[in-house]
């Protein structure tokens, strides 16, 4: 509908004038479109094309091998293990970050000075690079690190935080939660503070307890913030890499390798670029599907509030 009007008008005007009218728009939009095409859209299609080949990243000849790389991705035990661990990290991380973030946000939602200070304390790790967070915790959780030093004083023997499979997996997840829940907390705080105070006053008049107010007033009204928090955390954790590289370097025995760790290792160190590309296309699809699925699933919860 919108296009018919300009088209009709264009037919009446000489072509030169049409282009002169369009020129500013093209000059203003062109560069961004070009950069975006070159660095996003073209690479995305290239990733798909490369995923169908056995290219090693530098030789001049490669052959198209169809969907063989995709079949390999579902067969290769390293990739399957990495995918499973990534799923566990993404699921546990999303649940824990949001649970802890919401819990703390509910406790410090007031405007007092102590609360502002606490907000800063809980949030600060978020602005530090994940790589540095990983190195810091790696130093503290090592067999002779600070945490084991403290446990030693309490008479508890050294805990193999990073050297035994189950402990290492838990350490990765808890380190992520430590550094990330502050972000979720900040968004929850913004949501809680945007709830009109009249609602709480009305609830108090009706004799609702603090918990009932939180459950029946706050929680439904911050549903949109909840959705944003879930989607951002989930999508972010599906591509977790830096923190794992620094904390465990995928170990022990490759048990904490994530899918992005696997993609980068295969593409560059192992010179299996085609295989790496296939895995990244799968990750892209999974990310998009999960992101949209959570958004749509949450739409129900958000609608209930609007009604």
């Amino acid at each position, binding site marked *: 509908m919108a296009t018919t009007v300009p088209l009709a008008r264009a037919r009446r005007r000489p072509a030169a004038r049409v282009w002169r009218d369009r020129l500013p728009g093209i000059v203003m939009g062109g560069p961004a479109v070009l950069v975006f095409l*070159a660095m996003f859209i073209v690479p995305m299609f290239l990733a798909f094309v490369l995923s169908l080949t056995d290219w090693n990243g530098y030789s001049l000849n490669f052959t198209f091998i169809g969907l063989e790389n995709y079949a390999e991705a579902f067969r290769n035990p390293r990739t399957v293990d990495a995918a499973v661990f990534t799923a566990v990290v993404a699921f546990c991380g999303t649940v824990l970050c949001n649970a802890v973030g919401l819990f703390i946000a509910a406790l410090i939602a007031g405007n007092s000075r102590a609360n502002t200070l606490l907000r800063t304390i809980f949030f600060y790790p978020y602005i530090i690079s994940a790589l540095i967070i990983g190195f810091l915790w790696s130093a*503290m959780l090592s067999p002779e690190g600070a945490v084991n030093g403290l446990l030693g004083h309490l008479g508890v023997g050294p805990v193999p935080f990073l050297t035994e499979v189950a402990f290492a997996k838990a350490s990765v997840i808890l380190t992520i939660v430590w550094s990330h829940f502050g972000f979720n907390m900040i968004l929850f705080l913004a949501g809680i503070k945007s709830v009109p105070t009249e609602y709480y006053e009305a609830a108090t008049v009706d004799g609702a307890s603090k918990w009932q107010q939180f459950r029946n007033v706050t929680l439904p009204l911050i549903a949109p913030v909840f959705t944003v928090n879930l989607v951002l955390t989930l999508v972010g954790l599906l591509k977790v890499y830096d923190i794992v590289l620094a904390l465990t370097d995928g170990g022990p025995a490759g048990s904490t390798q994530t899918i992005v760790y696997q993609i980068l290792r295969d593409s560059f160190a192992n010179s299996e670029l085609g295989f790496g590309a296939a895995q990244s296309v799968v990750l892209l699809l999974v990310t998009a599907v999960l992101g949209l699925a959570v958004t749509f699933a949450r739409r129900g919860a958000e609608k209930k509030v609007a009604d």
Partner: protein
Amino acid sequence: MATTTHPTTPVPPPVASGTPAARPASRARRRPAPGVATILKWVVLGLGALVMLVPLYIMVINAFKPQDAIISSPLAITPDTFSLEYLQAALTSEKFNVVKAYGITLLFVALVNLCGIALAAPVAYVIARGRSRWHLGLLLLFVSGLFIPGQVTLIPVVFVLRVLGLINTIPGFILFETAATLPVTIFLFAAYLKTVPRDIDEAAALDGAGKIRAFWSCVFPIMRPVVATIVVLNSISVWNDFVSPQIILGPSSGIYTVTTGVYAAVGEFSTDYTTVFPTLLLAVSPAILFFVLMQRHIIGGLVAGATKG
């Protein structure tokens, strides 16, 4: 250092004690005995704060201690083990020139902000003012970038940059990082520009300014709040980015950002704590300082970016 800040803190309270401090005091008088719930709440918060702060404390104090003291007493610092030599060694390390890395990373942050905003603002304006299907398509094109993880495109981006001759160069890195900022930037800019009345454009047009000039001289200055949000978001993400500089610039270029430099310096020596802690402390300090100074803007920017994006 802690003692120098104390004498200054008593100064502000007399100014502030008018209303905000008076209210909590009167409330406290009304309820003299805090309930079990309140005590429990503060115990939980106190323990939580401790868990957050102890790692920072460990990093700071252990940057000034020898290896055996770090291992035997990680939480304590005594005058006889205190030494500036490790911090100095990290500052002057040949493996990782921290000062140079600060400079390079800051330069990258500035360039990506500049390029990203210069590219995104005009196209967001075209999208926000356009009424045709093309403009909506353009917005959708850019927004689709929000769902493409950077790591997924990184492999083929290396390929594209190699074709362009920009692999292992600063322009190549800036190009990629700028493109990575475009989806969020354009989305937020376009949303903001839809709230800016068209009268401003029309007034500029009446004064004879062309479309492009009207945008930069009349509309862009109004976008200040949203530009500030974007600068905060971009600065944090570029400063903390590790994968893209590691792969696009690569160790062969000899150009290290703070993160890739830390990886080069700490990666191999992660059991030599006299290297680890001072290096991490140096790498973290500017970010912490920036955060403390700009906290309100950073948190406001993140909230605005996440809830509108």
